[in-house]
């Protein structure tokens, strides 16, 4: 497996505020990696540095074989950025805009990877086929975001950046968006880096999650792996003859087996509650928002050990 992104000791300082204090990670080809963290943890700064939009204070960064701060236009052609659009191109139509922006990728087309995407197919993929010739100004927020996704992938990128892609989505739009990301990762083999502050979204999309807090990475694992690391005791709830019982146990499976061995059919209303990643993550976010970035980072590092 080839490494698409390498980040070593990345640091960013605005004035005398250290936003990133030594971040290290790699992204492998074809991976969907999620940068998870509370607002202000440095996720956007990190992704903007990798996109080549922001100049870092220190550290080494290689993206698709080049330093994004000095990368050329050929490098740009291999990446895609999904921007949070706002009110640009109000008089254009989705079809016209995609044709125009996709056009820049045509000189970079290769037999293995023809660029850009066919505009009609792309509009179909993001569910804008019926609105292809409407003025962009008349699109709803969710439709606009789908157009943003289409613009981000029109050049068939090898590496796609998504910064808080579903902010402001309703549940339906969110679901559709997740489907698009899955399809991209599977059928195109696109490597995807996305940021979110929503654990649930990270769980749905990512092969691997990096949790960013206090300017450092405090956890780097799959969501399952993270859950297992966070798990300590589980709470088991059951009832026998209408009497409710509950117990904190280390090995829930063994405990439940013993329970059935002893009481058999009498056991009812069985429930096992795992100490969840969510609890640990929410504690981290709370600490962070209270302004204790360092404490938050420590807390999570201890829990997730």
């Amino acid at each position: 497996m080839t490494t698409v992104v390498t980040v070593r000791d990345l640091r960013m300082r605005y004035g005398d505020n250290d936003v990133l204090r030594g971040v290290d990670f790699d992204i492998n080809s074809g991976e969907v990696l999620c940068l998870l963290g509370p607002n202000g943890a440095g996720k956007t700064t990190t992704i903007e540095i990798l996109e080549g939009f922001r100049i870092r204070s220190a550290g080494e960064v290689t993206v698709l074989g080049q330093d994004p701060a000095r990368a050329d236009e050929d490098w740009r052609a291999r990446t895609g950025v999904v921007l949070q659009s706002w009110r640009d191109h109000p008089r254009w139509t989705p079809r016209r805009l995609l044709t125009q922006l996709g056009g820049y990728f045509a000189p970079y087309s290769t037999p293995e990877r023809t660029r850009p995407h066919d505009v009609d197919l792309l509009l179909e993929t993001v569910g804008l086929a019926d609105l292809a010739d409407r003025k962009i100004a008349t699109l709803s927020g969710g439709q606009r975001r789908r157009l943003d996704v289409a613009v981000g992938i029109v050049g068939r990128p090898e590496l796609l950046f998504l910064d808080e892609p579903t902010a402001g989505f309703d549940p339906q739009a969110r679901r559709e968006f997740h489907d698009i990301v899955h399809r991209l990762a599977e059928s195109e083999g696109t490597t995807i880096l996305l940021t979110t502050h929503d654990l649930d979204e990270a769980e749905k999309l990512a092969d691997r999650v990096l949790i960013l807090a206090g300017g450092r990475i405090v956890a780097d694992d799959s969501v399952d792996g993270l859950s297992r690391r966070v798990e300590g005791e589980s709470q088991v709830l059951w009832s026998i003859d209408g009497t409710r019982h509950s117990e904190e146990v280390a090995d829930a499976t063994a405990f439940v087996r013993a329970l059935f061995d002893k009481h058999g059919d009498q056991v009812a209303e069985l429930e096992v509650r795992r100490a969840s990643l969510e609890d640990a993550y929410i504690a981290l976010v709370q600490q962070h928002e209270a302004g204790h970035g360092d404490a938050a980072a420590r807390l999570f590092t201890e829990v997730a050990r």
Partner: protein
Amino acid sequence: MNPTTHAIRLGLRRGWTEFSQSIRSTQDQGFYLFTAALVVGYLFLRRNTDVEGTDLMLPSVALPSILGALIAFGVVIGPAYALAMEKEDGTLLRHKAVPHGLRGYFVGQLFLQSAGLMPQMLVILVPSFLLFDDLMADPSGWLTVAWVLLLGLLATMPIGMVIGGVVPSTQKVGTWGMLPVMILGGISGIFYPIQQLWWWVEVIAQVFPMYWIALGMRSAFLPDSAAALEVGESWRTWETLGVLGAWAIVGALLTPIVLRRMARRQTGSQVEAARDASLQWIR
């Protein structure tokens, strides 16, 4: 396929698309008609006013000056607003995210702003030529109109681009762009001869391109005898070429540097900050 020339072609297509969308938009049509009504209305009200020292009527003398001022104004304020706005709404960032996109964006902007002058001039020239006599002394003047227009564009458009590039927000284009251009318009001999002003104001006006574009336009439309009204009683064609040419060269050298620096600083966070700022007008 060479990506650079390909990007220039895409930029021209972009400019054409923007231009055709603009002339179809009621908002832009309204703007053209509004300026035309102001100018033609002013000339009509003063159609019987003699211009002292000549046998010409006021519309003949004022029309070329006003055209010159409108060109300078449009080509400075137009790109300044466009750039300031498109920095904020993410248009520029979109182009930064595609290969050679910024080149295409600026080519498109050059095309759009230049092409936008055509409807602006037409809506003023057509009714003026129908309403007033003696506007064009000699048909060869149209040739002069062409080169003054072209050189004027090259001299003033970079100023607008630089203002749009450095201005911190769209709301500031008023103070950074509009105000100085209005002041220049006031002292550039558009509405009264420049010689009536203090000598130092006269010097300042002649440093900037607006005066020279208006002078060039007068030299195109008016008979040679009207040169008597000008500084040095001459059209000073060589000086016009020199001053406008100098601005064009400085602009061509300086603008890419300024715009490149500005584009380097474009980030998603900046666009987001602008969106937040736009929702909060009073601070």
